[in-house]
């Protein structure tokens, strides 16, 4: 069996594990559907902008983000429960294991967010659905980057569950708050200092949410610069995550523990 087919098998296993975790699916679906169909709709009647139109595309990106971050939980579980030892006994290189996890994380996030997109298309008219197909590969790269962040956290936390979940929540809160997922950049500019405005603008979640709003739902022509920005801001996370997870696997192989 070739390395590639082993990577794909491992990725498939991890991918299916994500969708088989019943409690996780219950959380994600109830959270995102209620965000889309309750919070966005009610806020629309409370706010000065059409918040439903603004927030529904962002919920898709939030779904992508949260689903990608779950990769970290699966890696952490594999470390805690010793499944990682089993992976190390497989005829696959360490790099192969890392690639399989990142691929599975990215793919699970894209599939999950695509299901949210389908629901969003029912409740909010989209001007250019076909633009989504151009966006999808970039969202996949973004999801791999986010999975990389999660992998880094899992690697750093080792078997200490409380630290892992705490770090994950901090990262999740900070990345979402410092983005334009919940509020337009004009509002951010009136409140934040220039340096924070730059961080918010460069946040890959802001870029993805903006791309989804502009290209899929508003129907503006796709701008390659925004897509390249998503790529450039996501890749470092993927690389750092891959290196961190690889280091963990190497330590495991040499010492048998972390």
């Amino acid at each position, binding site marked *: 069996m070739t390395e590639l087919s082993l990577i794909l098998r491992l990725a498939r296993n991890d991918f299916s594990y994500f969708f088989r975790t*019943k409690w996780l699916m*219950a959380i994600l679906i109830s959270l995102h559907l*209620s965000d889309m169909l*309750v919070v966005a709709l*009610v806020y629309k009647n409370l706010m*000065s902008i059409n918040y439903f139109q603004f927030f529904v595309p962002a919920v898709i990106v939030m779904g992508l983000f949260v689903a990608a971050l779950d990769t970290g939980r699966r890696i952490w579980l594999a470390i805690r429960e010793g499944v990682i030892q089993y992976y190390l006994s497989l005829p696959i290189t360490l790099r192969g294991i890392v690639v399989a996890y990142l691929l599975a994380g990215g793919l699970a996030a894209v599939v999950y967010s695509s299901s949210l997109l389908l629901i969003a298309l029912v409740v909010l008219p989209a001007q250019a659905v076909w633009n989504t197909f151009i966006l999808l590969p970039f969202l996949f790269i973004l999801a791999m980057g986010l999975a990389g962040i999660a992998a880094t956290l899992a690697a750093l936390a080792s078997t200490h569950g409380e630290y892992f979940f705490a770090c994950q929540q901090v990262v999740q*809160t900070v990345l979402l708050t410092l983005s334009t997922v*919940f509020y337009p950049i004009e*509002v951010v500019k009136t409140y934040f200092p220039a340096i924070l405005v730059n961080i918010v603008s460069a946040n890959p979640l802001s870029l993805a949410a903006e791309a989804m709003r502009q290209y899929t739902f508003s129907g503006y022509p796709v701008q390659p610069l925004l897509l390249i920005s998503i790529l450039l801001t996501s890749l470092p996370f993927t690389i750092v995550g891959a290196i961190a997870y690889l280091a963990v696997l190497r330590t495991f192989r040499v010492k048998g523990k972390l």
Partner: protein
Amino acid sequence: MLDVLRLVWFDLRHEIYPPVWITLQWFSFAIQIFLYGALISQLVPSTTQMPSYQQFYAVGFIVMMTFDVGSHAGREFVEAAHEGRLPYLLCLPISRSKLFLSIALKGGLELALMLMIPFAITLTLIGNLTVVSVVAAAATLFCLGFGVAGLMLGLSFIAFKSSDLYSAITTGLSAIIVRFSTVLYPLAVMARTSPGYASAAMFSPLTYGADLVRLFLGFNPGILLDPTTAVAVLTALAVSTLGLGTFLLGRLVEGVRSG
């Protein structure tokens, strides 16, 4: 009483050493109020009924934290059954009522620890308060916390069949209970969106908790629920669900294990 306190400390020290969860809750509160709340309130036009959405949201977030701590207490009971700690506690030379008291006390202390700083910040943010209003608001939060913990304990019988199913139901339910409540928005705005949403909000205990706390903290009563109904619902919830928890602990948990 010493036995009860020892049991409380036995469980509570895991939360304090190291205080990861408490610190995390305080950090989340700070981010939610001073970044998210401040920015989102720029989008909500101030009216005479609701001059500042940030203050409205701060109280809502405190109520959400109370809900989180309450449901955590319930889930911990299930985890205790799942991990074998419950059979150990049941075989201790201590009466069931004392055991239940220790669980309730631990929940109350945990709630106090979690809310101490966020509640103080919220009070400072709102300002112009009296001792009575602050005490009444805190008492409402405790009543709500006990009610939610009791509700989650009541649902624990599901976990004795399948803990996975319990987690799915409670976590899914939590998101729905928060969204369909007045934690994030006034009832009148929900009714304007859909009468169905407003009707659903009337079934959420958080609606009564949030509106009663807001009333005590000086929000315009015009956008809040009738306080008499809120007091009645919260008291009924706390008494009935805690009663159910006592019954479960006294009769049903012997020999069960969470699968």
